[in-house]
């Protein structure tokens, strides 16, 4: 069963990555070219049909995979690059700084992510980047808390005490001992946050707080679809989102089980 999780995860996320990579060099049609064929049926050459403007759905889906990956990478990178150092710092016992950071993280955590997205979109224009940044910022506390908690566990180990006694600089302890030890957990968190970011972006797209229509994204395709007259044009990007989110979720779970079966089966 554990292997199955990993395999399904690999297939799901692999499909997304593959679609994104192929779309860099080839798509069946120009994804932003309008044609006279509105709501073309799901037949050759438009195998997934066309949308209201006559743009090829399959091509847009493939290019949309790029955006999907971009959202995940950007959001997780922001959250991890800011959250993890802060968490490790606090976890290693910087008292005053730690207290201030903890309170800052509290405020950030209490600020609804949606608000950040609305504000960023209103201030800088709604785009995939602003949506990803908002999701990333909102995810900082998750990484910060995770890193802090696991750092605390690591810090109580004997070899850390030994290093401290022998006068090893704090920064060296952080890089040599703490980070490598908490890395697997953070990796699992990253995979989970990756899929959550994809889902969050779809939600923001539905509210009009992400990519403009000219940029093919799955969330946007779903939002613009007419569910009642052309259900397939909604179902196709919907399924794509489910596959991607599930893929990365299961990938994270699978890798974690593979690395350390003792770890809890929860993110």
């Amino acid at each position: 069963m554990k292997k199955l999780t990993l395999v399904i995860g690999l297939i799901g996320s692999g499909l997304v990555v593959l679609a994104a990579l192929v779309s860099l060099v080839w798509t069946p049609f120009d994804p932003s070219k309008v044609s006279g064929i509105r709501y073309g049926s799901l037949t050759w050459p438009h195998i997934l049909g066309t949308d209201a403007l006559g743009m090829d759905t399959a091509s847009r889906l493939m290019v949309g995979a790029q955006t999907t990956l971009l959202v995940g990478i950007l959001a997780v990178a922001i959250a991890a690059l800011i959250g993890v150092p802060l968490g490790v710092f606090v976890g290693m016992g910087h008292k005053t700084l730690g207290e201030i950071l903890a309170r800052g993280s509290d405020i950030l955590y209490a600020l609804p992510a949606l608000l950040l997205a609305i504000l960023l979109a209103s201030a800088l224009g709604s785009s995939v980047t602003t949506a990803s940044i908002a999701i990333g910022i909102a995810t900082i506390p998750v990484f910060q808390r995770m890193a802090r908690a696991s750092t605390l566990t690591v810090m109580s180990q004997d070899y850390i005490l030994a290093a401290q006694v022998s006068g090893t600089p704090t920064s060296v302890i952080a890089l040599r001992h703490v980070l490598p030890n908490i890395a697997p957990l953070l990796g699992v968190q990253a995979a989970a946050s990756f899929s959550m970011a994809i889902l969050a972006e779809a939600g923001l797209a539905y509210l009009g707080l992400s990519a403009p229509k000219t940029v093919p994204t799955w969330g946007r395709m779903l939002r613009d679809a007419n569910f009642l007259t052309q259900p397939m044009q909604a179902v196709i990007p919907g399924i794509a989102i489910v596959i991607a989110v599930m893929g990365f979720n299961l990938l994270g779970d699978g890798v974690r089980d593979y690395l350390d079966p003792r770890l809890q089966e929860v993110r």
Partner: protein
Amino acid sequence: MKSSRIGVVAALIVGMALIISGCTTPPADAKTLTVGITVEPTTLDLTTDSTAAIPQILLYNVYETLVKMDSQGRIKPLLADSYDVSPDWLTYTFHLDTKAKFASGAPVNADAVVASINTMREAPNQTLKSQMAVVADVQARDQATVAVTLKEPSNFWLYSMTDTVGIIFDPALTDLATAPMGSGPYAFESWVSGDSITLTKNESYWGTPGRFDEVVFRFIADPNAMVSAMLSGDLDIAGEMTSPDSLELFSDASKYTVIEGTTNGEIVLGFNNSRETLKDLAVRQAICHAIDRQALVDAVWAGKGQLIGSMAVPTDPYYEDLSATYPYDPAKAKELLEEAGVTNLSLDLRIPTLPYTPGAATFIASQLADVGITVKVEELDFGRWIDEVYSNGDYDMTIVAHVEARDIVNFANPDYYWRYDNPEFQKQLASAIAASPDQFVPEMKKAATILAEDAAADWLFVFPNLIVTREGINGVGENMTSLSFDVTTISSKD
């Protein structure tokens, strides 16, 4: 453990509520008309806020005007049962209907009319203020007669008095923002923020009373939600269909009536005429040649919506079809660009997020790419659009519907966001407005033609009036000639 106990309790509550819901039938007392519209106003103070949603709900239904526009674009008496115009076309004398009274019981007298007109002359809402700019003086001759003197003859003024600017307020009205008071067949009842505005029947209405005890305007922004509310029987009228593709779902004539008319809304691809590249007529012509407007309407608005070609709509008396001025011809467009020596043209298309804009922008970006113009589309929330595009002119092209009647005047204002400064047009429009009434139409046609030939903008199409009513609802106007969603003529069989 504890939390699951809470869960059980909650489930029981919901279960009970469901059982109750199965047992009770809705009371068949009040006769209610429920209309779905897309935009919720942020305030009802129309002297300040120019949102079209305010007159959409209140004009004619709650607030009345001296004269009214019917669905065919003709001026009809309302609070004034007649009016005279002086031979020099400067003085309009309105004879008020002596029966007319406000919902509060106070009579609609000359003082109220004078006060309202003066309020509009000083209104922060620039549209209203500029429509009243031509007024020199307002006098109450007696309790039922009001004389308005203009600074110069205007073919526009009386016409504008049929719309928002002509509203006569109840003098007792103190809170324009949340408690409007007028003389219409319905009175403002309540506003549930985020949900609806409810009007109730004005029992003491001075004319033909409203046919419903209650009219509810529901705010449903999402097109899918509007369609499902209509399909599931929650609405009597879907007042604005912002997903025209869905009209096919209402083809069963025994259950629904689909109304397709026109509005005053020109969907304009606006150019920033102060930009170096766009100052060049050849570039503007090339853009117009590069866009297949019929295909655009077909793709973006399911083919509903007429092509116009200038800033006039089919219900304007001076309308003529100028849509063939720059027909779709990509080869010609390329040629024009080449002759003008323009290469690698890149334009920012910055649009407010409205139901029709993203599709139109995507379509235009694709077609302009075919003639070698790169278009960068950016979607802005309305607040930012107003700030950056509208106020500061920070854009190359934009798309928005101009819903006010006779808004061709905006092209005569060089400070308007199009930054269009054409003395020839300004002169022509001024003389058309001040022309003798028999010369009005031909002079206006000339003005509209100047705009079209100068490619001052690209007029994509007229926003259609797409309405679905359930079976049994009658009297919905076909064309939206004012900003009002007029429910005063609507009745139902059951």
